[in-house]
C-alpha cells in the first residue's frame, strides 16, 4: 500500500494542499444531488410499503380512511389468509405460473436475441423493432387483444383451430371457452405474458452478445464445435451475469401478474385466481373495502418475491466468491 501511495506524494506542489482541504469540506454535494430522487422514492415507494405493513395488522375499511381509528387485530389477517384453503390454491397458481412463464420468457427471449444477432443489419433492425412494439404495448391493451383473439365470438384462434383438420386438433373449437377452467386460462395468460416480456430478454441478450469477441467463436469452430456447444461453452458463461439479472427480474415480474388475468377471467372465476387477484378481490372487490386483509396478502406476496430474489442474490455472491 505504501509503495503505491508514494508516487502520489511526489507529484508537483499544487496538489499537496488538496487532501487537507478535502477533509475539511463536508461532502454534502452528492447527497444533495440524490436527495430529490430519494424524496420521490421515499414518498412513492417506501411510505406505501410502511403503510401496507402497518395496515396488514389492522382492520381497515373506508370509515378508517376517513379518520376513524383503525382497530389493531394483531395477526388475525395473516391467520385468516393462511388458514384459508383458497389462499393455497392461489399460491399454487402463482408459483406454477411464474415457473412456466419465466422459463418460457427466458427461452424465447434468448432464441430471438441469438436470431437478431445472426441477421443482417436491415433485417435485425426490422425484427428488433417489431419485437420492441410488443414490449411497448401496455399490459391492459395486450390483455384485451388476447381476450379477443381467444374469444368465443369472432375469436381468431378458435376460428383458425376450427379450420384445421379435426384429426390434427380435435373438433368443437368454434365455441371453445378458453376461460372456463384454470388450465386453458393460464395457457392464454402465459402466452400473453411471454409475448410481452420476451423482447426485454431478447434485447438484453443481444446487447450482451455484441460484447462477446468473435474470435472466440472462430477458434471454437476451428476446433470443430457446433452452435449448441458454442452457446453453452462460450456465450452462456460469458453472459451469465446478464442471464442472472434477467432471471431475477422475470421472477419478480411474473409473480405479480395481475392486469392480464383480471381482464381475461376476472372476479367471476375464482378457481383461476392468483395471489394478486385474491388480494385485489379482498381489498377492493366489494364496496366494503377490506384494506387490512388485502395488505396482508400483498405483504405475503412481497415476502415470497423477496425470498426468491434473496436466494438468487446469495447464489450469485457465492459464485463470484468461488470464481
Amino acid at each position, binding site marked *: 500500500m505504501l509503495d503505491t501511495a508514494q508516487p502520489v506524494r511526489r507529484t508537483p506542489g499544487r496538489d499537496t494542499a488538496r487532501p487537507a482541504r478535502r477533509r475539511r469540506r463536508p461532502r454534502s454535494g452528492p447527497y444533495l444531488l440524490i436527495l430529490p430522487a430519494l424524496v420521490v422514492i421515499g414518498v412513492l415507494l417506501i411510505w406505501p410499503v410502511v403503510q401496507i405493513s402497518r395496515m396488514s395488522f389492522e382492520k381497515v375499511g*373506508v*370509515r378508517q*380512511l376517513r379518520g376513524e381509528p383503525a382497530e389493531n387485530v394483531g395477526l388475525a389477517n395473516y391467520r385468516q389468509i393462511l388458514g384459508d384453503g383458497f389462499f393455497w390454491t392461489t399460491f399454487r397458481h402463482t408459483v406454477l405460473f411464474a415457473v412456466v412463464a419465466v422459463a418460457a420468457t427466458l427461452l424465447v427471449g434468448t432464441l430471438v436475441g441469438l436470431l437478431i444477432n445472426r441477421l443482417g443489419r436491415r433485417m435485425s433492425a426490422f425484427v428488433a423493432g417489431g419485437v420492441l412494439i410488443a414490449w411497448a404495448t401496455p399490459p391492459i391493451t395486450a390483455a384485451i387483444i388476447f381476450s379477443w383473439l381467444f374469444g368465443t365470438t369472432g375469436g381468431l384462434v378458435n376460428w383458425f383451430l376450427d379450420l384445421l383438420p379435426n384429426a390434427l386438433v380435435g373438433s368443437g373449437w368454434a*365455441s371453445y*371457452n378458453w376461460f372456463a377452467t384454470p388450465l386453458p386460462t393460464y395457457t392464454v395468460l402465459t402466452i400473453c405474458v411471454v409475448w410481452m416480456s420476451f423482447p426485454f430478454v431478447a434485447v438484453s441478450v443481444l446487447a450482451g452478445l455484441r460484447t462477446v469477441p468473435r474470435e472466440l467463436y472462430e477458434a471454437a469452430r476451428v476446433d470443430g464445435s457446433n452452435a449448441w456447444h458454442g452457446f453453452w461453452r462460450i456465450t452462456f458463461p460469458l453472459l451469465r451475469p446478464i442471464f442472472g439479472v434477467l432471471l431475477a427480474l422475470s421472477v419478480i415480474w411474473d409473480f405479480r401478474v395481475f392486469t392480464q388475468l383480471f381482464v381475461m377471467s376476472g372476479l*367471476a372465476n375464482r*378457481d383461476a385466481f392468483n395471489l394478486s387477484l385474491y388480494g385485489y378481490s379482498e381489498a377492493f372487490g*366489494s*364496496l366494503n373495502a377490506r384494506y387490512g386483509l388485502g395488505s396482508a396478502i400483498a405483504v405475503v406476496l412481497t415476502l415470497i418475491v423477496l425470498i426468491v430474489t434473496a436466494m438468487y442474490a446469495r447464489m450469485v455472491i457465492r459464485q463470484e466468491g468461488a470464481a
Partner: protein
Amino acid sequence: MRFTKAAATAAVLTVAVAGCGGNGKKDDSAGGKDPAKIVVWQMGDGSPEQTKFLDGVKAEFQQKHPKTDVEVQYIPWPQATQKFQTAIAGGSGPDVTEVGNTDVQSWIEQGAFADISDKLKGWAEGKDLNKGALANDQADGKTYAAPWYGGVRAVWYHKDWFQSLGLQPPTSWAGLVEAAKKIQDKKGVPGIAAPSDWTNGILSFVWANGGDVAAKQGGKWTGTLDQPQAKEAVEFYAGLVNKDKVAPDKYVGKNELQGPQQDFALGKVGMYMDGSWALPQLEKINAKDSKNWGVFPIPGKDGGLAPVFSGGSDLAVWKDSKYKDVAFDYLTTLDSKKNAQAFASTLKFLPQFTDVLQSATYKNDPIMGPFAQAAASGVKFTPTSKGWADYEGAKKVLPNAVKAIMQGKSPDDELKKADEQAGSLLNQ
C-alpha cells in the same frame, strides 16, 4: 456554487412534494340561504341525451333557486365505487348523487348519505314511490335515498324465428327448454344463453320457485340455497348447460355482456336474458335486425311470471353536503314523476312510481310492455345487508357455485358452501 444550486432545487422539490397534501377545505358560507353552486354526481359518460335532460332539470330547479348554479359531474359506472370511497375518506363529495340500487345499503352503512326521512314526508309525489324499491333505501327505520329509475330483466327472443318454427313465448321452464331445443335443432345455433356470472338473473329463477338466497331470522342471516326450492331452481339453470344442453358452455364464467348480448344481436344464439336497457346496445351491434327482436317475461316454473330483481339507480343527498335542503329540492325536481319518466324512457328503464308503471303508456309498448308487466308482477330485492356487496361483488358466491355445478360438481356441496359463505358474509 453548483452544489448550492442543486441543493436549492432539491429543497424546492421537497416543498413542492410536501405541499401536495393539504388543500384547505371549502369555505363554509351561508347557512340556510341559497348557495352559489351545488354539485351533482351522475353515473355514465354524459351522453347528449343525458346532458340535454339535465339542462332541462337545472332550468326547472332554478325557477325555485335562481341564484344557485348546478354543476353536474359524470362518473363512469366502473369508477363509482372508488370515487365514493375517496369522497367519503376525503370529505369532498357532491351534494346530490346518483347511486346504483344494489350499493345503497353499503353506502348507508359507511356513512355516505344524509338521513332524508323528514324531508321525504314533505314531498307530495314521494308517496307514490314503489314501496319495494323504497325499502331498499331504508335502514333502521330511516330513509337515506329515493328510487329514481329501475329496470328488470326478461328474455329477449327472435320473433321471426319463433314465427317460422311455430313457437309461442314460453310460460314455463319446460316450455323454455323446449323452445330452446327446437331453435338449436332447426337453426343450428345454441338455443339460449345461460351465463354463470349473473347473480341477479339466476335469482329470478330461485325466486320463481319460491326459494331465496338467504333469510333473516332473529336478526341473523342464514343462507337458504340448499333448500329444495332454491336448489331445484339452481339445478334447472345450470342444467340448461350440462343437462338439457340447450345453452353452450362458452358463457360459463362470463356475464351477459361478455358474449350473450353480442351473439343474440348477431343471431348466433336463440334467446338471452337481459334488461330493457340493453336495446340501445343491441341496436348498436346490429340495427337492421332490431324489428325482429321481442321480449317475454322470465317464466315461473309451472306458468306465471318469475319475480324479478329490479336493477337501477336511486338518488341520495350526500352526508357532507352543506346545503342539504337545497340539495333535496334538486333531488325532488330530478325525481318528479314527469322528469323521472322522461329520463327512464331515454335509457329504456322504468320510473319507480307505481301509478305511472300501471298507466297505459307502458301497457301498450311492445318492448317496454313485457318489462313493465314483469316489474308489476313483483319486484324483489337481494338481502338488505351490507355484506351483500361482498357476497355478490368480491366473492361472487352464486356465480362461482353455479359455474362449478355447470362443470359437473355436486349441487349439494356447492350450495352448502355458498350458504356457509352467506352466513359469514351477510352477518358481519
